[in-house]
C-alpha cells in the first residue's frame, strides 16, 4: 500500500466549493462557541495544567490502572476482554454480537471507526445501525466521518436532504429539524428491537470501574439502556485514576469540544443492571484495546499524544484542516492530532506526509484542553521523517545548496548578488519562468528585490 499523499488528497478538497463553504462556516462557528465557554472559566489554564499532569501520571502507570479498572469492572458485574489489535477486538465484539442476536445499535466511537468494526460485524451477518445523527448519515452515504465530533460537517443541508430522500424513500425535507425528526423516527425502531449496543468510552475510572460516556443526542443513553447487552470498546489510554477527577475533565471536554458548559448527557455506568432494576443491559462487556498504543506509550517523546481526550478543538483552530477537511488526512483521526497519531499508528514511511500538513502556527497547542504540545510533536515527527530519508530529492538538493552558500561569507555574498540579478530579470517577465517555478508565481506576486544587500548598506 502506498502512503498518504496529503498534497494530492487535499487538492480535490481545495477545488470542492461545497466543502469549502461548509468547512469555513463550521469552523468559524465552532470557534465562536468555544471562546466564551473557556473565557468564563477563570481557572481554565490551571485546569489544563492539572489535566495534563493527571494524564501524564496515568500514562506512566498504565499497567497499574488498567488492572485496577479490570478488577473494579469485574467486581461490578461486568466482563473484561483484552485485545492486542483491531482484528482481535473486532473478533471479540463480533462473537458477543453473534451470541446475543446480531441486531446492533452503535453510538459514535472513533475507536470503532479506527478498527473498521462495522465491516467486521456486517461480514459476520450482523445488522449494524449507527445512531448518532451525523454517523447515521455517514453510514447511509457510505462515507467515513470527517471530524472527530462533527462527522458530517463536510456535507451541506441540501446534500443531506437529498441523501435521506434517496435512501429512506421519504419526501424530500429540507429543514434540519424535519430531517432530524425523520432520522429519530427510523432510529427509535432500531433502538427498541436491538440485541446489542456498542459504544466507545470517554473516560474509564479505575477506582470504581465506571465507564463515562459524553453526548448530546441521547443515542448513547439509548444504546446503553435498551439492548440486553452493552459492549464498550476503549483504547488503553482512556483510563483515569479517580472519580473526583471527572470534575476537571468534564469541565474541560464540553467547553473545548462544542463550547457547551456541559454536554446534554453524561452517563456514568458501573456494571450491568442490578437486581430489582427494570432497564439497563443484563450484560456489560468492556474491551480494552492496544492496537499500536503501547508502542506509542513506550516512545519517550511521542507518548504524550495518548493524553488526547478527542474533543476536536485542535481541528477547529487549524488553518490547514479548515481548508482540506478531514478526509484529506486518509485516516479516521484528522487535523493536528491526526497528523500526529496516524504516523505513529502506521509509521512515518506511510504517513510521513501528515506532519507537514501544518503551518506550525501553534494554535492547536494553545487550544488543547489537556495541553498536548502538538506543534512540538509535529516538529519531532518531521525530524524523524527526514532522518529516515523521507525528504523529497528537491528539498534535499535545496538544503545542500543552501548549506554550501550560507556557510562561507564570500559564497553568501556572491550567491546574494546572483539571486538579486536573477529576480530582477524574472520580475519583468514572470511568465518566462519554467516549471515548477511557474506554479509559484501563478497565484503569487513576485516583488522586485532591494537594490543592494542590507550588509552592503550596513558597511557604508
Amino acid at each position, binding site marked *: 500500500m502506498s502512503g498518504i499523499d496529503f498534497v494530492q488528497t487535499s487538492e480535490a478538497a481545495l477545488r470542492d466549493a461545497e466543502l469549502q463553504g461548509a468547512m469555513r462556516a463550521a469552523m468559524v462557528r465552532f470557534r465562536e462557541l468555544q471562546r466564551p465557554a473557556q473565557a468564563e472559566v477563570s*481557572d481554565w489554564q*490551571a*485546569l489544563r495544567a492539572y489535566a495534563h499532569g*493527571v494524564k*501524564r*501520571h496515568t500514562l*506512566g*502507570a498504565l*499497567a*497499574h490502572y*488498567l488492572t485496577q479498572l479490570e478488577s473494579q469492572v469485574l467486581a461490578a458485574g461486568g466482563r473484561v476482554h483484552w*485485545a*492486542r489489535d483491531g482484528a*482481535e477486538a473486532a473478533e471479540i465484539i463480533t462473537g458477543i454480537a453473534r451470541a446475543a442476536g446480531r441486531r446492533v445499535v452503535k453510538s459514535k466511537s472513533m475507536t470503532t471507526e479506527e478498527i473498521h468494526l462495522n465491516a467486521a460485524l456486517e461480514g459476520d451477518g450482523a445488522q449494524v445501525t449507527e445512531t448518532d*445523527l*451525523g454517523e447515521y*448519515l455517514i453510514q447511509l452515504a457510505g462515507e467515513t466521518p470527517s471530524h472527530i465530533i*462533527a462527522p*458530517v460537517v463536510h456535507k451541506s*443541508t441540501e446534500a*443531506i436532504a437529498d441523501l435521506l430522500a434517496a435512501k429512506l424513500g421519504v419526501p424530500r425535507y429540507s429543514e434540519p*429539524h424535519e430531517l432530524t425528526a425523520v432520522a*429519530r423516527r427510523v432510529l*427509535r425502531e432500531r*433502538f*427498541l428491537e436491538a440485541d446489542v449496543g456498542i459504544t466507545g468510552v470517554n473516560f474509564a475510572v479505575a477506582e*470504581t470501574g465506571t465507564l463515562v460516556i459524553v453526548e*448530546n*443526542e*441521547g*443515542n448513547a443513553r*439509548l444504546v446503553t*439502556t*435498551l439492548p440486553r447487552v452493552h459492549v464498550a470498546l476503549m483504547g*488503553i489510554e482512556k483510563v483515569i485514576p*479517580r*472519580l*473526583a477527577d*471527572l*470534575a476537571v475533565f*468534564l*469541565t474541560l471536554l464540553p467547553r473545548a469540544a462544542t463550547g457547551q*458548559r*456541559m*454536554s*446534554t*448527557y453524561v*452517563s*456514568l455506568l*458501573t*456494571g*450491568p443492571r442490578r437486581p430489582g*432494576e*427494570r*432497564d*439497563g443491559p443484563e450484560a456489560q462487556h468492556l474491551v480494552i484495546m*492496544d492496537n499500536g498504543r*503501547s508502542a506509542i*506509550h513506550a*516512545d519517550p517523546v511521542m507518548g504524550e499524544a495518548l493524553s488526547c481526550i478527542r474533543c476536536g478543538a485542535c481541528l477547529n483552530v487549524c488553518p490547514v484542516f479548515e481548508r482540506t477537511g478531514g478526509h484529506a488526512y486518509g485516516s479516521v483521526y484528522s487535523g493536528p492530532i491526526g497528523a500526529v497519531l496516524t504516523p505513529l499508528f502506521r509509521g512515518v514511511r506511510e504517513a510521513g506526509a501528515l506532519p507537514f500538513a501544518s503551518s506550525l502556527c501553534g494554535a492547536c497547542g494553545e487550544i488543547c484542553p489537556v495541553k498536548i504540545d502538538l506543534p512540538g510533536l509535529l516538529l519531532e515527527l518531521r525530524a524523524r521523517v527526514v532522518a529516515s530519508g523521507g525528504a523529497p530529492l528537491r528539498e534535499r538538493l535545496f538544503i545542500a545548496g543552501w548549506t554550501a552558500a550560507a556557510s562561507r561569507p564570500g559564497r553568501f555574498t556572491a550567491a546574494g548578488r546572483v539571486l538579486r540579478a536573477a529576480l530582477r530579470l524574472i520580475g519583468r517577465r514572470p511568465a518566462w519562468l519554467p516549471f515548477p517555478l511557474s506554479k509559484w508565481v501563478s497565484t503569487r506576486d513576485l516583488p522586485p528585490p532591494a537594490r543592494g544587500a542590507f550588509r552592503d548598506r550596513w558597511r557604508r
Partner: protein
Amino acid sequence: MSAREAILAALRRGDAAAPLPPLYAGSPRDSATDLTSAFVQRAADVGAEVHRIQSSALPSAIVAAVMEAGEREIVIWDDPLLDDSAGALREAGITVLSGEAQTIETVAACGFGITTVDHAIAETGTLLLGGGPGRSRAASLLPAHHLAVLPEVRIRADLFDLMREVRSPLPSSLTFITGPSRTADIGLTPVRPAHGPTTVTIFLVNR
C-alpha cells in the same frame, strides 16, 4: 502469552510514573451568592423550563402538567417525594407506571416521565439522576416529556462541589442531564430533540 499479559508486559516496559497530582483544589471560583437563581438561569439557558412549586402544591402541579401535555399514560419513579403525586395522578384517571411495571416496552409507550433529582449544578443547569430499583433509566429518556422534581437544597455550586459528594459504591447508572436532547449535526443548526425528550421541565420545591 494472552493478550492481557502481552499488553501489560509492553506497558510495564514503558511505565515510569510521574507523581499523581493531589486532587484539584481549584482557584477560588465565583461562588454564586444565590445558588437557586443561578441554577434557574443556567437551566433556562440550555432550554429546560423551571418552575418554583410549593411542596404542598406539588401533586396538583404535576397533575396539571400531565393534563396540559394531553398524556394519559405516565411513568413515575418510586420516591417518597413523589408518593402523593402518584396518588393524585391515579385519582385523575391517568395510567401510572411504577415499580415492577417499568419495563422498556411499557415506558416506551409513555408520553411523560417523572423523576426526582439527586443533585443539581448551578453553574451548568445540570441534573444528576441515580438509577436503581423503581428508578427507571428510560423514564428520563424515552417519553417525549421529562419532568424532574428538584428540592432546592440539593443544588450545588459546580461540578467540583458535586463530585465531592459522589462516592463509591456507585449505582449502576448515574446520569447528568443538561437540558433536552439536542443535535447540531445538520448544517450546524441546533435542533431539539435529537433522540431523547423534547422537553425537560424542572419543578423546584422548597424542601
